[in-house]
């Protein structure tokens, strides 16, 4: 690919000064905990079989401990006494062009920052955090794959990562509102825009308005059925944040500020992150860190909200409508790193008759292979599809016809795996399943206003 050619040329052009500064940069991004993690790997090898890259390519470079070691070797050579005095004995290596290439390969090319290795690590090394610090360093040195950076740049320049104009967004929202009203047979099924003081601000992945509006329609149907007081924003509506993948905290923070800005502008009480793993992790867990600022409102996943509504009796489903076997994919950033594992299961048990788990599942589930920005980096496409083989076989083993994935990013990868591995499945979001199973409120409500009452 042209991009890897450009990257190679950039690495060739690095001066000794660039390299020295790069390593200092890395140290500044690592933090104290990170420095400890670089020293604590005991090379037990347990991580090897936890990683979907190693399980599919069996290359030593794909073993998480090996990826960690590329990064640790450079750190040790400069910042530890033993590494400076006896590099050969400690495995310390100079941060030269060859090692930079190994960093790019390890951090961008062979890691989806899914964190499964850390869960299986005897000494608790947070590999994704170290890989993110390495990515951050490479990004600042200009060595990030151009297409990954482009997603960040588009979001910074246009307010969403697909460059959708305000007119196109509003036009699409209005259109989906009409489609929803037609589908549920109720003109009260609205998608309010910029409703001041609404209880919930709902945010979406740009992929929905651009190509897959049925997901947005399903979400609108659910909000309508629950009688929720909600809104979308005319600006600051994109929940994605590729700053999580580039490692650039300043840019990640600037993108996060779009959502915080909408919340402040509209005075909403709860920020609801639609079905997107990395978007949830970035908004819920990382953005406060990047911005050094606690949000003054609640941030929750749409999964939690739908589950709450089912428990409160505000949503009712008829599971007999979905009798095909259904399985559930656990997005790394929602489940293992995001802490949301049960709401989606409670929801599915109410909405389908034949729900089977993948093995393993929940926090131990395998990455689809598309995480960590892999879907945006064309040069690693073959590797990504190969690494997705683990997920493909997990799906096949369930015998399911429908794969539910509460993450638009995972869904793109799963659609490709479906084709590549001839799985013959249908892939849906949780909201799409809920919308199909919903028992809607009567089509002629006593008063339109009922649907706008805050709960």
């Amino acid at each position: 690919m042209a991009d890897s050619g450009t990257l190679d040329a950039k690495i060739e052009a690095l001066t000794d000064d660039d390299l020295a500064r790069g390593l200092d940069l890395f140290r500044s991004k690592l933090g104290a905990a990170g420095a400890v993690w670089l020293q604590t790997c005991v090379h037990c090898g347990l991580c090897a079989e936890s990683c979907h890259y190693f399980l599919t390519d069996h290359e030593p470079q794909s073993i998480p401990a090996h990826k960690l070691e590329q990064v640790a070797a450079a750190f040790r050579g400069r910042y530890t006494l033993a590494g400076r005095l006896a590099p050969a004995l400690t495995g310390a290596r100079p941060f030269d062009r060859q090692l930079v290439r190994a960093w790019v390969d390890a951090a961008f090319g062979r890691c989806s920052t899914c964190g499964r290795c850390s869960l299986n690590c005897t000494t608790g090394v947070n590999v994704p955090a170290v890989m993110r610090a390495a990515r951050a360093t490479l990004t600042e040195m200009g060595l990030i794959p151009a297409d990954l950076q482009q997603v960040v740049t588009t979001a910074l320049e246009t307010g969403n990562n697909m460059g959708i104009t305000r007119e196109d967004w509003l036009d699409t929202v209005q259109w989906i509102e009409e489609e929803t009203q037609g589908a549920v047979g109720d003109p009260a099924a609205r998608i309010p825009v910029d409703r001041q003081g609404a209880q919930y601000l709902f945010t979406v992945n740009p992929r929905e308005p651009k190509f897959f509006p049925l997901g947005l329609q399903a979400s609108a149907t659910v909000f309508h059925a629950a009688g929720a007081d909600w809104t979308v924003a005319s600006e600051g509506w994109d929940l994605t944040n590729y700053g999580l993948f580039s490692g650039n905290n300043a840019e990640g923070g600037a993108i996060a500020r779009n959502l915080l800005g909408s919340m402040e502008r509209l005075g909403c009480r709860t920020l609801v992150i639609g079905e997107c793993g990395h978007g949830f992790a970035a908004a819920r867990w990382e953005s406060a860190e990047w911005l050094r600022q606690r949000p003054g409102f609640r941030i929750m996943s749409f999964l939690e909200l739908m589950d709450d509504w089912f428990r409160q009796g505000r949503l009712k489903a008829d599971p007999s409508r979905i009798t095909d076997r259904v399985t559930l994919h656990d997005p790394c950033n929602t489940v293992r790193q995001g802490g949301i594992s049960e709401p989606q299961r409670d929801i599915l048990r109410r909405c389908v008759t034949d729900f089977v788990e993948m093995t393993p599942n929940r926090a131990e589930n395998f990455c689809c292979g598309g995480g960590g920005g892999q879907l945006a980096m064309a040069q690693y496409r073959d590797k990504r599809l190969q690494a997705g083989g683990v997920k493909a076989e997990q799906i096949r083993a369930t015998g399911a016809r429908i794969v539910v994935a509460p993450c638009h990013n995972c869904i793109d990868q799963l659609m490709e795996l479906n084709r590549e591995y001839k799985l013959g499945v249908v892939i849906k979001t949780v909201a799409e399943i809920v919308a199909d199973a919903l028992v809607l409120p009567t089509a002629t409500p006593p008063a339109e206003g009922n649907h706008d009452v805050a709960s």
Partner: protein
Amino acid sequence: MPNIAGPDGPVELDDKGYLKNVADWSPALAPLLAARDGVRDLTADHWAIINVLRDHHREHGVQPMIRELCRRTGFNLKRIYELFPKGPAQDACRVAGLPRPDSCV
């Protein structure tokens, strides 16, 4: 790299089934691309979508919003997905010979 037998000789595809070289597209090639995606017969409705996709891409350099696609063809969403079951971003763009949309994240 997979190839398909086009009307004027083999045509190169990328590993997602999109044309490697957008200029290779011709109306005669479209049914062959469609067959790969399990779309057996290209009806006038399929062609309406293909033409809008190609026109919009020529005019703006990007794939249209699906809203625009519905508006210009007069089809509702349901009809679009009936015609191209895997959706406009995948099947339809492939058959219309458009480049793969930037990763949908």
